[in-house]
């Protein structure tokens, strides 16, 4: 396995890299096209950028640990930083990126790093693009998605870091900092990436929209923000899909908030409200965009001979047939219950209890329909008590 892996790797890397360059930017997904090229291009992480700018000018890099939720710029930042340090020509010989898709057993990691670190870095100060780069005398090893490395591999990494401390700098990147063993974490300067705040997300999305010449209204931007919860990659992917779909319709239709919600897999409010009503929760008409229509609809709910358990069972069946994800339904129902005006605190607590149980069960892979039904029945009971 190991041997086979080494034969494969170099060509893999080359193929990937070379192709990347020839790709027509118009055919590139926007997340890649607008990946920050330099660290001051990284939005919203001002503190991190400020610190890194300093290390860039002194070219003295510590070992680093980047952590934070998906799509907040961790991978982009370290790639941009490395590029700014070494320039395009030296990048390949100076930066080694290992991620969760590479084989990362202890012995393999050690071998790879040993091989990579051994070659003496030969700096080439003026790059082919005419600019000069600091090119400090060390190599950078990026361990992306480090939280999926085993504890043993992490422990072994400690030694490796020490052995090659003079000529390498490590950058560990992960979502969950608690999965990194303490002795390893304590050797690194830690950088916490925050979910993107709405104003930087807005700026970034508007910038992309202008570059790509798509019209976006403020409500669309705010839907993008609310559906992506601080994950800029998601927001950009949604925007690109919506733009493509609107351009493809004839005549060209403007992007609407509803388009974004559909792309994001959000259950329409009218459906969540109808579900809540079936469970006995009061939905004031003001909350409901289509108040009147909805009321009429509920009156003749699919089959008005159904009551009690059977009505709820049928409603859940319908929801599942629509294919909405159970965790999404749960999130939206949870928000509705918690923010509800007239439910008592006691009722809300009972609902919160069952929702927590359901969340856990869904993570364990339990059947979605059974658990949405369970939530529905117990919410119904809580509301009626």
């Amino acid at each position, binding site marked *: 396995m190991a041997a086979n892996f080494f034969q494969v790797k170099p060509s893999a890397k080359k193929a990937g890299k070379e192709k990347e360059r020839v790709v027509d930017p118009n055919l590139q997904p926007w997340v890649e096209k607008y990946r920050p090229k330099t660290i001051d291009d990284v939005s919203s992480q001002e503190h991190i950028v400020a610190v890194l700018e300093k290390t860039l000018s002194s070219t003295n890099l510590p070992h680093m640990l980047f952590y934070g939720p998906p799509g907040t710029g961790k991978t982009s930042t370290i790639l941009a930083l490395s590029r700014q340090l070494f320039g395009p020509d030296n990048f390949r010989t100076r930066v080694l990126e290992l*991620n969760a898709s590479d084989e990362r057993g202890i012995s393999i990691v050690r071998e790879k790093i040993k091989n990579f670190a051994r070659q003496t870095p030969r700096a080439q100060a003026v790059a082919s693009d005419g600019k000069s780069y600091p090119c400090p005398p060390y190599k950078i090893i990026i361990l992306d998605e480090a939280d999926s490395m085993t504890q043993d591999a992490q422990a072994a990494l400690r030694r490796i870091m020490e052995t090659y401390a003079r000529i390498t700098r490590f950058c560990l990147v992960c979502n969950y900092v608690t999965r990194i063993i303490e002795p390893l974490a304590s050797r690194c300067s830690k950088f916490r990436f925050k979910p993107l705040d709405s104003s930087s997300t807005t700026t970034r999305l508007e910038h992309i929209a202008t570059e790509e010449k798509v019209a976006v209204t403020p409500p669309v931007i705010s839907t993008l923000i609310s559906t992506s919860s601080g994950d800029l990659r998601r927001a950009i992917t949604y925007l*690109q899909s919506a733009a493509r779909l609107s351009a493809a319709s004839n005549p060209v239709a403007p992007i609407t908030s509803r388009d974004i919600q559909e792309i994001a897999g959000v259950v329409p409010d009218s459906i969540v409200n109808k579900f809540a009503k079936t469970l006995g929760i009061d939905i004031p008409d003001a909350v409901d965009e289509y108040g009147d229509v909805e009321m009429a609809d509920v009156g003749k709910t699919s089959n008005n001979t159904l009551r009690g358990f059977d009505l709820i069972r049928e409603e859940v069946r319908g929801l599942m047939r629509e*294919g909405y994800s159970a965790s999404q339904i749960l999130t939206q129902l949870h928000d509705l219950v918690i923010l509800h005006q007239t439910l008592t605190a006691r009722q809300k607590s009972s609902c919160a209890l069952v929702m927590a149980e359901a969340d856990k069960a869904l993570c364990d892979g339990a*059947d979605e329909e059974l658990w949405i039904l369970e939530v529905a029945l117990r919410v119904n009971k809580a509301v009626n008590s």
Partner: protein
Amino acid sequence: MLWVDHYRPRSLDDLHYHEGLSDRLRSLAASGDFPHMLFYGPSGAGKKTRIACTLKQLFGPGVEKLKIDQRVFLTPSRRKLDVNIVQSNFHIELTPSEVGNYDRVVIQEILKEIAQTQQVDLNAKQRFKVVVINEADSLSRDAQAALRRTMEKYMSNMRIILCANSTSRLIAPIKSRCLLMRVAAPNPAEMKAVLSYVASRAGAGSIPDEAADEIISDANGNMRKAILVFEALKMQTPDLSGPLSIAKPDWETYCHKVADMIVKEQTPQQVMEVRSKFYELLSHCIPPTIILKTVADRVVERADESLKADIMHWAAIYENRMRLGNKKIYHLEAWVVKVMSLYKHFLFDIDMTGFED
């Protein structure tokens, strides 16, 4: 060939329902910057058919020239894994969950391989190859982690299409890299249209309304099941104009029998009887979750209103435990005991209230 396969739509234009979705897929396929995608929705709603049609839209008819390979992978501990792989010149399709916890090895190797191979066919309509991953919601955490950066790094020559029943078990970084495509089950009218279409294509004449309605209501949105039942019906009774009796699949009838036993008598002997029936079902490879849900639904139909919520509550609890545990039969059985005791208590309570006043 079965009707489900024979009359399966082959291009986006032939697809019956969800025209809006087909339009979206068509425009995505035309755009050149096709994203990674995640198709999700209930079984039998038509996810795979839609994926196949999308591939054809992307690459043309060449994508239908399939070869099936059995590939051997080696785990780090040198265990051999056999995996079936379906591929054309333009795409590759696999179900990594076949190898359980070793799925990461398979994902890793296949993606590396695809990422390295350039498209050699100069006439190919796209520069990238597509990797279709079935049952993506059963991918282990490790396998999902292995997908993450790869999905970004090799985007220039590879796209991934994930197919899943639900998105709940996929980690956020994966969802964040895909365009989500929800494929809802067809509604009864849409199902009826498909059945009529199949009937006329198969030279089966027209399908009587009552028969169609009954098949559709039994199928609960599962188009595949509806067509299978319809074909079985036609084989059984070639003349559809007379009185019809629509047979349920054997396993379903069997589950109903189990439910009736639970409702009828609540004794330790009966538990033993039920247990042997469960064994029978399991040995025929009926998924334990389906068994539990089918039996529970039937028990609830027959139970008193005041018991229904509790019966389903315990079904939810034991199904969850069954997923985590090893021996499916234990949890099925435990649920039966629980339901029987609920029944007993219920009867007992009624007796007592009779005496109290």
